[in-house]
Each structure stands twice: as structure tokens, then as C-alpha cells.
């Protein structure tokens, strides 16, 4: 048992932490948000140069052969910086799906471009009625002479507005929630029949509603009727990454709050001298540390070959992070007082991102139900 990072991991952490410290002040972030894409293309190129985009890709495809721990390191730092770039959508989800489901030719065609920062990917999975059930897919894919043709609507596709390539779950067979009959299709974002409506999300990131009207898929990843287990695997990995990002967010909210309590004076003293507030700050601290612990567990387990153990562990992690994140976020705002209610002050932005993470890929209640149905964690 060993929680130490390897030398390479430590170097990665140092470089990504330094990058965030240099490039992601609260003021700089506002500028990136005002750019046409809602994030910085220039920074994206720098991430590529630093090797961050390919850190978890195989070396044969332009990457560094990292895994869940490397993703965790990057995600935690990006959480601290409230990074806006489509790392989660393109690298974690897009890159993850191509690695898990693609054949060698598909990997060779896409992963190096993704690592180089020249291809953006989005995962079109959520549908209005599906909520958190990955097996509930109503978008259809029909085999024709030209190839697979997609019809239907996908919702809240993370960074779907800027993506070059869409990875779309679609039903090729079976009933609406059958586990079999789901395929994972590669669709060019500019293909005929694809309509995208992009918008800003509550946390300052971007997403899109995407409809497919007889849109021709460029390719299919893996078995056109058997994609679900791989989708579940990649979504579990992605949840672990989100949880690591949440640890970064929570840690930062706690630090900012404690610092603020020390300098804010009321009734002639700094408010950090009030025991009732001290104890609430301690409860935040405990929640952050318990989440950090659970994130380590979720990170390691997200690569477990036993799908049941993996999924149970990741869901348990999401529950812990969801509960703790709500507490830490709400308390960060409350302990600050009015200043935290303003867009001008940074802590509210962490709270907003945290709140969005809570409901991404299953909220706390949905994951708790999954854990409860999956037997003992021990």
C-alpha cells in the first residue's frame, strides 16, 4: 500500500499545478470565457505541447501511457483552476471511448490528433428521458447501403458545440432500455443531418443540444449492438475523474473560506475566532479529506477488471463526493456571507461547478441506489 506518486507523476503534478497557477487566475479565466468558443484555444495548444492531452493515451498513439492516476492529477489541478477547456469531454470521455472501443486503425486515426490538440471530441449520450440510465437509448442507428444512419435527439452534450467529432450512442436493436442493441457511432459534427445548438452551462462551460436527422455515421466503434459494457466502463472512469476534479474544487473552496474567515472582521474581531464558525470550517475540512480518501479509492478501482466491483466502488465515490461537495459548497457560501453571492467573487464559481458535477452521470441519489443494490462494499 502506497499513496506516493511516482517520479513521473510528481513531475506531471508539478507542471500542471504551475500551469494553473500561471494561467488560471480568476481574472484570466474571465477572459477565456469571453473568447468565441467560451474557452482558450491558445491554452489548449499549450496543454498539447506539455503533453497533458495525451497523458493517458498509449505511447503508440501519441500518448504517454498513463492511466487513472495521471487523469486524477490533471483533474484535481483543473478543478482548482476551474478550467474551462474541453479536457473532460475530449480527452476523458472521447479519448477514453476510442481507447476502450476502437480498433487499432481507429485509434491510430484519432488519438494522435486528439493528443496534438487538433481534434475535439464530444460524447453524445444523454437523452431527455434517459436521465442517468446508460441503457436507455432512443436515438436509432439503422444500417443502410451507405452505412449507419442516425435519427433522434441528444441532450446536454458536454462541449458538443465545439467538437469536430461526435461519439453517439444509438440503438441498433432491442427495446428502449435493453442492454443489448446499443452501438457507439463516430459522426462528423459537420455531417449533413446534424444540428447543434450550443449554450453556456451554469458552471461557465459549454454544452449543446444535438439532433440527428438521417445523419450518416462515419464509423462505428466496436460491436454495433454491444457497446454498453464499454460505455459503462468509460463512464465509470470518467466519474472517477470528475470526483478528482471535485476534490480540487472542494479543497480550494475550503482554503479560500478559511483564509477569508481569518481576515474578515466583524464585532471587532476576525470571524475565525467564533467557535461556531470554526467548527463548521472543520466539518468542511473533514468532508474534503474524506472525499480525497474516497477519490483515491475510486481512481484505483475505476481500472478494476471486475466490472461489478468497479462500478460499485465508483458509485460509492460519487455518493461521497456528491454529499460532501454540497456541504462544502453551501458552507463556503454561508461562512463568507454576502460576498459569496456575487459573480465578482470566486468562491461562488467553485460552488456552481461542484453543483453541476453532482448531477453529471448520476446524482447522489441515483448512485446511492446503485450501491445499495450491489451488495457489500467490504
Amino acid at each position, binding site marked *: *500500500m502506497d499513496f506516493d506518486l511516482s517520479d513521473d507523476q510528481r513531475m506531471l503534478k508539478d507542471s500542471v499545478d504551475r500551469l494553473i497557477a500561471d494561467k488560471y487566475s480568476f481574472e484570466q479565466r474571465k477572459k477565456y470565457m469571453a473568447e468565441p468558443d467560451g474557452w482558450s484555444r491558445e491554452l489548449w495548444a499549450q496543454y498539447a505541447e506539455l503533453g497533458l492531452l495525451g497523458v493517458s493515451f498509449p505511447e503508440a498513439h501519441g500518448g504517454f501511457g498513463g492511466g487513472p492516476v495521471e487523469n486524477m492529477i490533471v483533474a484535481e489541478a483543473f478543478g482548482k483552476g476551474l478550467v474551462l477547456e474541453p479536457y473532460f469531454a475530449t480527452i476523458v470521455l472521447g479519448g477514453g471511448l476510442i481507447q476502450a472501443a476502437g480498433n487499432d486503425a481507429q485509434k491510430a486515426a484519432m488519438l494522435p490528433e486528439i493528443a496534438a490538440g487538433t481534434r475535439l471530441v464530444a460524447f453524445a449520450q444523454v437523452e431527455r428521458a434517459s436521465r442517468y440510465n446508460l441503457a436507455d437509448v432512443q436515438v436509432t442507428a439503422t444500417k443502410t447501403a451507405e452505412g449507419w444512419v442516425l435519427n433522434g435527439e441528444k441532450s446536454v452534450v458536454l462541449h458538443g458545440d465545439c467538437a469536430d467529432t461526435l461519439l453517439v450512442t444509438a440503438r441498433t436493436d432491442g427495446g428502449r432500455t435493453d442492454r443489448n442493441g446499443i452501438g457507439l457511432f463516430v459522426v462528423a459534427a459537420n455531417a449533413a443531418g446534424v444540428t447543434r445548438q450550443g449554450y453556456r452551462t451554469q458552471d461557465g462551460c459549454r454544452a449543446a443540444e444535438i439532433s440527428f436527422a438521417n445523419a450518416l455515421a462515419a464509423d462505428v466503434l466496436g460491436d454495433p449492438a454491444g457497446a454498453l459494457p464499454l460505455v459503462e466502463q468509460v463512464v465509470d472512469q470518467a466519474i472517477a475523474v470528475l470526483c478528482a476534479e471535485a476534490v480540487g474544487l472542494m479543497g480550494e473552496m475550503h482554503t479560500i473560506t478559511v483564509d477569508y474567515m481569518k481576515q474578515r472582521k466583524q464585532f471587532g474581531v476576525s470571524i475565525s*475566532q467564533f467557535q461556531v464558525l470554526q467548527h463548521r470550517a472543520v466539518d468542511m475540512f473533514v468532508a474534503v479529506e474524506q472525499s*480525497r*480518501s474516497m477519490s483515491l*479509492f475510486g481512481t484505483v478501482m475505476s481500472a478494476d477488471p471486475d466490472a461489478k466491483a468497479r462500478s460499485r466502488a465508483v458509485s460509492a465515490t460519487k455518493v461521497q463526493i456528491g454529499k460532501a461537495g454540497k456541504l462544502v459548497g453551501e458552507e463556503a457560501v454561508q461562512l463568507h456571507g454576502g460576498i459569496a453571492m456575487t459573480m465578482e467573487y470566486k468562491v461562488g464559481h467553485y460552488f456552481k461547478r461542484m453543483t453541476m458535477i453532482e448531477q453529471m452521470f448520476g446524482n447522489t441519489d441515483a448512485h*446511492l*441506489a446503485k450501491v445499495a443494490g450491489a451488495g457489500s462494499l467490504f
Partner: protein
Amino acid sequence: MDLNFTAEELAFRDELRRFFRTEIPESIRNKVLDGQHLSKDEIVLQQRILNKHGLAVPGWPVEWGGKDWTPVQRYFYSDEIQQAGVPGGLAFNTSMVGPVIAQFGSEEQKKKFLPATANLDIWWCQGFSEPGAGSDLAGLRTKAELVGDEWVINGQKTWTTLGQHADWIFVLCRTDPAAKKQEGISYILCDMKTKGITVRPIQTIDGGHEVNEVFFDDVRVPKDNIVGQPNKGWDYAKFLLGNERTGIAQVGASKARLKRIRELASVEPAGEGRVIDDPKFSEKLAMVEIELKALEMTQMRIIADERGKAKGKPNPASSILKMKGSQIQQWTTELVMEIAGPYVMPFALSDEGSGRNETGYGPEFAAAAAPAYFNKRKVSIYGGSNEIQRNIIAKAILGF
């Protein structure tokens, strides 16, 4: 980063697991796993078995029977002993007075007390808290005056756990009334048979008799019964805080409780099905398991952090273990009450005064459900209440 243990570590764990589950009588372990009280004889018996095999006092210095274990090995010891339902060394002996005597006592004291303490030939109890000194322990007023060759002790101690069984008591006494309150306290050892000591039982809300009041009325003990230097007792008491922190979270015990809870809920009927089929119940159970998994990982992080650090130096993050560990223990008792349903109600006071034995009404486990719930309220109060733990984190970690 690797959450797996080495083959050697796992072999060490497996050997402990085998030992605890084969050498300690099952009747004792089942009582612990069911949350029932043990008799004095049962506690003594199991400690002597442990001691015979060199496993009663692993945290002590090696020359007095301790083990020079790594943090991981110490973790496995407490995790496995708790999961097996083995009560383990009496805490007053093995975690409290023993390490203090080993560190600060005279050679004569070490020879006289340590082997007998390890073997539970002497049963110790703790004379710290007083009616006016709870969380503010340093406000204690029981005083000891040196008269000739003897300390003369007057005052009152309370919450003396299992003092009814005790042969000796270690007492914090005020020996310099003029000094700052932490600086005038001494650590004195006292034979319970000494004239002037009166033990009065306190019945707790679960119906049991675990704790007592102990009165000192001109109690005379030899001068040499002081441990270390006069007026340094507070330092010795604080030294304990850095000792044996890995057991405090009770992660192993809570794992065992949750395992039992899952078994009980899987057989106890509820409507057409069983208790476990109620999604509300199974989600509550899952929630406690998640909290415990997070705590287990936090404990691992603290253990990993201890490696390469000076032994016995308290890590303020240990306060997390106390706070969350106590909450989790309390939640497990709530789950058992839920399984028992209406059969939480019958009350039976056994001759041990524990209220834990079979009432003959309803399922066998149910008799202990409510008493355990009431009893476990103590865990967030004793050993530095959870509010005191928050004060520690606020000061030592957050810098308030």
C-alpha cells in the same frame, strides 16, 4: 500509487486472522459481535491467551513485550482483532497506563507493573474525569499532598469505566495548586484496596453498569507511586494521545457490525419480504458502508503518512478518525434498531446489569438493539468529545 498490500503484509494479516479466529473462544467473540457485554472472566481469559502468544501489547516497547511493527502491521492488528470480535487488551492496561509506565516510570515500577499489566493480573482503571472536569480535564481538583513518605489524596473521580473490576487506578491529581492549571498535575498509581477509596456504580441510560464514581477520602499511597516527575502528569496524559491512534476509528469493529447487520437484515421478515428488500433501509446501510470505506482510506493515508515519522507524535488528522469513527459506530446501532422494528421495545435487565441478554421476546438480537444505541452515544463524548476534536483541528490544522 498502489492500494494493494505486499505478499508479506498479507501473510502477516492472514496469520493474525487465523490466530484470532481459532485461539480465542467463539463464545466470547460472538458476544462482542452481537454487542453484548462480557464478564470480567471472559475479558481476562482472552487477554491472557493474547499475552501468552505475545499479542496483548504490541504497541509497547519491545523489551516489555511490544512488537516493532510497521504502521501497516499495526493497522492489520487492530483491523483483524476487531473484525474477529476479539475484545483485545483492556485499553486501560494496554493503551493507557502501560505505555506511560514504560516511557516515564521508574525501573521498579516497570518491573512491578508491566508484566502483570500485560497479563491482566492487574486490572487498571482510569482516574481522570471529575464532576467538574470533563472536556476541561485540566480543571481537575482532586488533590494529592505529600505528607512524610506518602501522598494523601482527597477528591472525586467519575466515569471510571469498569472500576468495579479494578485492582489499581491511575489518578491525575493536583499537586501544585499555585501553578498554571496544566502545570500542577501529577500522575499517581493507587491500589484500589487502599483505605479511603469508595466505588459507587453509575447506571447508564442503556440500563448497564460500565461506569462508576470513585471517592478518595484521605487515601494514603507511598511516595514512590508517582510516575515520572511531580507536576508533569499532564504531559504524560497527553503522551497517550499520540499512542495507538490506529485503533480509535474502530474501522474493523464497524466492518464486523455491518457484516452482521447485512446478515440480520437478510433474514428478518418485513411484509412480504425481508428488511434488506426495503430500498430505504438498504440505502441507509449503503450510506454507512460508504462513510466507512472513506474512513478506512483516510486511516490508510494517515498510516502511510506515519511511515518514516517519529513514533508517538500525534497527527491532528487523527481527530478525523475519532469524529467519523464514532459517528459510524452510532449509525450502526441505528440500523440494528431498524431491523428489530417493534422488538426494540422489550427491556430486560440481566444479572450483569447490561440489559443485553435474551429477553425471550422477539428475535434474539433485538434485545441488545436499543441498549446498544443508547450506550453508543458515549463514543462521541469520551476520549475527547467530538467538539474537542473539532477544536483540535481548528487550532492545529486550520490555524484559527
